């Protein structure tokens, strides 16, 4: 039973990271954008849940929220969860609403925030996104009515009506379906002509422009789609954790998602599947080791040092990752033909 609950928990987290890694693969792996605000868009989804689940639940049930939100949100979350146990429909509304709010908002913000930097070199984009990411966190941390500031906010359990083992299992299955759905979307984009456009821009922006591609527009679209995906992950993450805390969404989280994509193999659509899995295994292994070894400092620090070093070593020694991007077949053929000379080229064509 314990094994099963571990697997369900692991699987839910894997699905969430699969969504994040898919969006990073699309933005960074395929288009080559330093998408350094992943944590902010994840946070956007989570904050929507934190700010809405209790308030909407109370609104529908006709409860008046008393006292400061930061102090009472956990209490009301428990209260509403108990009500949901007998009202499945209420749970479904609370589960669906954050998606409807967060996803369009993230898509809009993803394109709007980066608008000033879209036409400039990637460095500007990276710094604008990092600035945005920190500002989202700082605002949420200090503006307490939103998600309770440093207190965090309680989140309603929308599947409370299913009872103990089933509600976790259903959240897992829903996350898994969304995770694979979004990964499949990334896969389809990557293997379609659109994917070739993205990689063309990544490999040679000037050449892509010369072919008539509107680079800024493509970037804006991909950032909108990627940010919307991250918001989906954020909503699931908040329901999975059962609480929202602004300090959970630092740049370290963005870094972890970048690590997954590099580990898997930038530019290969299978990289999110591989990268997210291996990262989570490393993470669990480190937690396991933590209990075995007496270390005179906080082990979380050591794990970030190790992961940072791992990413650097990967970039130097194995930039392709575990499943490297496959070069286009056409390039290979052209090289072969040019080696054979003109006559064979004609012959080859007639074949």
């Amino acid at each position: 039973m314990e094994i099963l609950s571990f697997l369900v928990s692991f699987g839910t987290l894997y699905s969430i990271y699969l969504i994040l890694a898919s969006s990073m693969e699309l933005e960074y792996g395929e288009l080559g954008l330093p998408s350094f605000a992943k944590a902010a868009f994840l946070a956007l989804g989570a904050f929507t849940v934190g700010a809405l689940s209790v308030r909407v639940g109370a609104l529908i049930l006709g409860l008046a929220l008393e006292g400061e939100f930061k102090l009472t949100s956990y209490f009301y979350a428990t209260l509403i969860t108990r009500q949901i146990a007998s009202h499945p429909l209420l749970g479904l509304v609370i589960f669906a609403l954050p998606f409807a709010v967060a996803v369009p908002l993230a898509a809009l913000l993803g394109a709007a925030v980066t608008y000033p930097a879209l036409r400039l070199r990637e460095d500007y984009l990276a710094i604008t996104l990092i600035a945005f990411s920190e500002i989202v966190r700082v605002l949420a941390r200090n503006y307490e009515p939103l998600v309770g500031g440093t207190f965090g906010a309680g989140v309603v359990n929308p599947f409370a009506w299913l009872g103990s083992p089933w509600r976790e299992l259903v959240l897992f299955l829903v996350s898994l379906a969304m995770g694979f759905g979004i990964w499949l979307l990334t896969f389809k984009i990557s293997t379609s002509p659109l994917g070739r456009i993205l990689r063309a821009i990544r490999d040679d922006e000037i050449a892509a422009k010369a072919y008539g591609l509107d680079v800024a527009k493509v970037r804006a679209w991909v950032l909108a789609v990627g940010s919307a995906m991250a918001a989906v992950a954020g909503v699931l993450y908040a329901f999975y954790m059962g609480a929202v805390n602004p300090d959970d969404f630092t740049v370290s989280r963005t870094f972890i998602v970048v690590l997954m994509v590099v580990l898997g193999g930038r530019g290969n659509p299978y990289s999110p599947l591989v990268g997210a899995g291996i990262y989570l295994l490393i993470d669990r292994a480190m937690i396991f080791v933590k209990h075995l070894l007496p270390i005179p400092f906080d082990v979380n620090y050591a794990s970030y040092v190790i992961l940072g070093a791992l990413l650097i070593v990967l970039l130097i020694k194995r930039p392709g990752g575990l499943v490297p991007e496959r070069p286009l077949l056409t390039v290979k053929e052209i090289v072969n033909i040019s080696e054979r000379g003109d006559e064979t080229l004609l012959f080859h064509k007639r074949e």
Partner: protein
Amino acid sequence: MLDVIIGAVVYSNFLALLSIGLCLTILTSRVSSFAHGDLAMVGVYTAYTLSAALGLSPYLCLPAAFAVGGFVALLSFALVFEPLRRAGAGPVTLMVASLALDMVIRYSLHIYADLLQRTFNVYGRDFMFNDARLLVGGVSIPGALIGSSLTASVLLVMLYLLLYRTKLGVAMRATIENQQLAMVLGINVRRVFAISWFISGALAATAGVFLPFRLLVNPDTGWSMLLSMFASVIVGGVGSLLGSVLGAYLIGSSELLFSYLLASLGISTAYRPLVVFAAIVATLMLSPRGLSILWSNGVKGSWRS
């Protein structure tokens, strides 16, 4: 109000030394390093360790911070950015690597802070340095104001002399201008990169020593100031060392004035990064070449696409 002005000058001196170093590495080795703020904290912890172990005044630790900061920056160039450059990594890969380097340095400092706390029985985080106050014309002035202004101006003048009065400076400027041409002319570009990384780290760490005089510091402080550094570089017009210094004073003073304004309106000063973000967005929207349009009209710099 006087305290706000003093704070603004000390903070701007700090930013100036950091952003000119950041600008130098962007110009020479084309790395927009997200680990630059952490180099300042390397300086802070070097000075803090020496003053905890030997009881030295932080001012006497400045040369040590200079050396250690330069060494750490040199090491990160040799171990991270040079191998990547050889492998032909693009600017985005270099940025991702610098993000990873930030993780390594920042969390190593956290571990170091824990160990420091155990070894010397001092606070590993959220500490400040005691500052001497000097009486100038009947007004009591904190030593950090004079110390950081002197240090910043001496170091900036020395950097100017290095760049414009020595043969090495000519080689560095040639590398900035055109890397391939510099190589053709027999300039050891790799040495130029290494030297500019050393200078960049040394300036950052030296500047860092003045931070604990004004505020409580921990290993994350440098990272949280990274935005201000990049904002200074962007406002100055990327590609201009002079611009980044001017940008630093502009950003530094507007940040402190903004937080003074927030405090007098009764709003949390934590919203301070908003003004930095606004400065970045405004510069990119209105004049991506920043302040440098005031004195240069040619298309220069490495951040143009």
